[in-house]
């Protein structure tokens, strides 16, 4: 690996400048249909908060039925830990700190749930172009992030690398032990850019690379 660096020509040849002919899907990203479809498909489903809230509501409803039926029949249907709610509610005033805190907490939880339902959220996958209109393709974020990091780590001289996916850009942070970091940034940039070109995302992101030199190299 070390002598490749001395032969500039070799690295140029190895760079996959002219890959296999790419299928005609490049124009897909300019059309709105596939983009909207992909965005909708990979939007977070909010399944976890939804299931959680539904379960809490169901449990509260069932408990309410048991309690109210017990009170209606005037004997406990079920041996639930029972407490007298009427007493404390008669003793607590509206302007008490506890009332204020509980009311604020309930309103806050409500606001969080409304926002969770309304905010689209970060897509779970980066949408990729597809030549077939019935196919929505995506690369799940975490997997793509790790793959790009591995790719950057395979560049000669790079020790460790991490990739971050932003909305319109990909940030790669790499560390090296080399004293001379000339050209490293460009090499990492080219490697990541080439992989992205092969992936053909619907929104081509910009690639930003930062190289950090590790001390004691």
């Amino acid at each position, binding site marked *: 690996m070390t002598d490749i660096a001395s032969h500039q020509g070799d690295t140029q040849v190895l760079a996959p400048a002219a*890959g*296999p002919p*790419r*299928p005609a899907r490049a124009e897909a990203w300019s059309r709105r249909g596939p983009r909207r479809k992909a965005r909708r*498909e990979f939007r977070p*489903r*909010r*399944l976890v908060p*939804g*299931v959680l*809230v539904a*379960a809490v*509501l*169901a449990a*509260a*409803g069932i*408990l*309410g*039925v048991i*309690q*109210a*039926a017990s*009170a*209606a029949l005037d004997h406990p249907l079920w041996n639930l830990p029972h407490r007298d709610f009427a007493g404390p509610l*008669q*003793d*607590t*005033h*509206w*302007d008490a700190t506890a009332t*204020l805190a509980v*009311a*604020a*907490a*309930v*309103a*806050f*939880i*409500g*606001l*969080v*749930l*409304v926002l*969770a*339902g*309304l905010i689209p959220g970060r897509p779970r*996958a980066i949408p*990729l172009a*597809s*030549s*077939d209109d*019935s196919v929505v393709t995506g*690369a*799940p974020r975490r*997997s793509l992030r790790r*793959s790009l990091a591995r790719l950057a780590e*395979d560049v000669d001289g*790079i020790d460790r690398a991490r990739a971050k996916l932003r909305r319109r850009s990909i940030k790669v942070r790499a560390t090296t032990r080399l004293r001379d970091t000339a050209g490293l940034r460009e090499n990492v940039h080219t490697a990541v850019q080439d992989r992205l070109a*092969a992936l*053909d995302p619907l929104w081509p992101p910009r690639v930003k690379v930062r190289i950090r030199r590790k001390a004691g190299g």
Partner: protein
Amino acid sequence: MTRHTARVSRAGLILTGLILFAGGGVALARSLDAFPAVLGRANVPLLSHAQVRYPTEHAWVWPVTAAAAAVIAVIALWWLAAQTRTNTVRRLTLEPDRTHGVTILPADAAIGAITDELESYPGIQRASAALQGAPAAPRLQLSVTAEDQADLAVLRTRIETEALAHLRASLELDTIPTVLRIRFSPAHHRRLA
């Protein structure tokens, strides 16, 4: 796990959130003595003596409360079921012309065929698939794990023009709406740095 369940989750969250936000907001306003003319004064107990005695003097209160709680429980359970339902197709109906009878194909067979084909492609390590929706017009969820070094342009063309075409042909469908997820994994023999 379809778009329908995503809408159900979000709609339920918005509705529950609005109710909690409104209730909490009104209680907060009264607690802060914001609109004493409308909401009542703040320096009184949460429940008055008359309110505490009310259910014992009116027999209908507890049964109605129980019924309301039951309605909430049923709606919540329905919501829970709607969100966790996977909507998977188990058997596919093949013959579109019903006068000649219907052919029924287990979905597992179709899924096994396409995952086997995908896993035979060079560069693909694993593939999984699921058919969802109506048995006569299913949708396909496809997940593929490709090696880092795989030629993705070629792979995707093969998936779209070969594997999916074969599935369409075997199911006698003109189109199968597909969601394809491509994951990546390091190749078996990775070069050591």
